[in-house]
């Protein structure tokens, strides 16, 4: 059995007017030591998905149906106190906004120590500090900066310190939600290399959430493309990156800036930049039908079906054979 199994996970937000589906029947599984990237534009539900795994949805968000099994535990029905023991000890998170992920009035070192000592109450302070020193060595921050306050760190340092904290309890799974988005490209590259190396070395499973398909392709074994709450294409990195099938994936890839500074148009027929149309999402029909240059009558009348391109490469589209 895989380390993490997500079955039919549907997450919704209650608003004044309606109940909005943010993630719709998401299925995937993840083995120990493997990494999966979830790619999609803002608002497609990828962060919601990550939060739901840790049961950290905002108060108006809830899991409508589905199961999340982690190491044999049904995470969604776990009592709160047991869930608190799973958090960080088993599943850690690297946050989107490292700038604001640190409590501004507490020293960084104390915040990392808090994580260690919450999950290991017996450890002495000296031992815990030693652990933090080792983590700092790993993420290449000088040890004399451990007990600085967050505002004394640069953005990149804060992000690396977050990675150090994520590793503090040796988790089995790390969810990295846009870990490099706020950073400049050089620091971004350093951080990505770090994450990749640590993930490999410690044999940690990784869920990497990003809007940048190039970044994801550099880090992950598998890629899932998410659009309007649905996974529309999933497969091994090479398959999705080299042979994208879903028109949305192709559009996403074609808007990806290559090293030459030109748009590499992979699909001449869908140059339109992906964006979420204003029309309400029909629950069953393909969400991309309004923008898809290939949309046929069938797309507008029938829900799309999952097709297997290869045993590991699947796509949710009526057009693909």
């Amino acid at each position, binding site marked *: 059995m895989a380390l993490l199994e997500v079955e039919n996970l549907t997450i919704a937000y209650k608003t004044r007017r309606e109940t909005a589906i943010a993630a719709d029947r998401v299925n995937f599984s993840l083995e120990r030591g493997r990494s999966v990237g979830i790619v999609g534009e803002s608002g497609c539900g990828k962060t919601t998905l990550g939060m739901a795994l840790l049961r950290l949805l905002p108060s108006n968000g809830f899991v409508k149906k589905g199961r999340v099994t982690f190491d044999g535990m049904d995470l969604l029905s776990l009592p709160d106190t047991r869930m608190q023991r799973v*958090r960080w000890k088993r599943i850690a998170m690297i946050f989107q906004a490292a700038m604001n992920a640190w*409590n501004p009035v507490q020293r960084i070192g104390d915040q990392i120590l808090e*994580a260690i000592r919450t999950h290991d109450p017996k450890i002495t302070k000296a031992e815990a500090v030693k652990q933090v020193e080792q983590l700092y060595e790993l993420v290449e921050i000088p040890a004399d900066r451990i007990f600085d306050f967050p505002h004394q760190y640069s953005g990149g340092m804060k992000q690396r310190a977050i990675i150090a904290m994520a590793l503090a309890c040796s988790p089995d799974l790390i969810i990295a939600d846009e870990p490099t988005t706020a950073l400049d490209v050089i620091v971004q590259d350093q951080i990505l290399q770090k994450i990749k190396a640590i993930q490999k070395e410690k044999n940690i499973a990784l869920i990497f959430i990003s809007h940048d398909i190039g970044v994801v392709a550099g880090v992950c074994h598998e890629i899932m493309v998410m659009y309007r709450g649905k996974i529309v294409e999933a497969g091994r990195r090479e398959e999705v990156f080299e042979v994208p099938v879903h028109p949305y994936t192709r559009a996403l890839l074609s808007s990806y800036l290559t090293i030459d500074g030109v748009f590499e148009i992979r699909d001449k027929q869908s140059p339109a930049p992906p964006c979420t149309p204003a029309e309400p999402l029909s629950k069953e029909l393909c969400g991309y039908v309004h923008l898809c240059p290939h949309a046929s009558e069938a797309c507008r009348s029938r829900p799309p079906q999952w097709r297997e391109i290869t045993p590991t490469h699947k796509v949710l589209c009526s057009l693909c054979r």
Partner: protein
Amino acid sequence: MHFRKLIFRRIIEVMAIFFLILTGLFLLFHLSPGDPVSRMVQPGMSAEDASMLISQLGLDQPLWLQYLYYVKNFFTGNFGISFHYGQPVIHIIGRRLPNTILLFTTSVILSAAAGVFWGKLVAWYKGRPIDTWVTILALVCHTLFLPWIALLFIWIFAYHVGWFPLNGMITPEVWINPSAGFLTKAADIGHHMLLPLLTLFIIHVGSYLLIMRSSMLETLKEDYILTARAKGLSEKRVRNRHAAPNAYLPVVTSIGLSLAFSINGGALTETVFSWPGIGRELIFAVSNNDYPLALACFLFISLVVLVANVIVDVLYAYLDPRIRY
């Protein structure tokens, strides 16, 4: 190190502000209508005697020279003789100021502590009945008219029920008794202080509660609260160790801002309860044209507010490392 420099700078600033107040008050007192001498001059006094008195008081000197004397007198602690009491003003201030500080420090500490505690709690249970009712109650407290609630309390608790003395700060019989120890005297003051304290508490607790509540609600949206939860901390720890310390900051600011107002309200409270404090003395001095006393009251009230603001700044810097480092 930076911390000390910051406090040092604030003290310099406060001293400059105080000097401006000193000068401003001097000008105001010279501009204000009414002649200080006319009070001292007896109807039977000759014009010669009157002008002698004026030159004795130095009021025939040019304004700038008077100002220099005024500043010199301030720094030597010479505030003149009160017209009404016939005693040095500094002695009267020395007797009244501690009473005011006792009452107001206690009321600020108690109402801020209670406001912060309840504000934190109701923000945590936002939308539940406890939040709704406590917030409504806080709004009611916040909008109450101070003299009205003070009189109401006296009427109910002192006059009808008789739990508390009607007014004043001490019971003379208790203090005359030579065998009365410190504790007996302190208990007597405490007994007199309870009603004014309760009044000030009710007036101020609402605003502290509302500020803490909204500040806490803002803080709870921050990313580091999510981090704290993701770390597997208990909800109580998230609330008390991560959210609350950040939410305190606006409350501390508002304590600093509200101090000046609470001393104003204090004059009312002191008058209604006949609390022998500096606010009541000020009202008395102003209505009796007791210029030296009124001037000294103004100066010391502003001094207290400025010192309290320095204390608030120190507290703020202590709570927020971004200021300190």
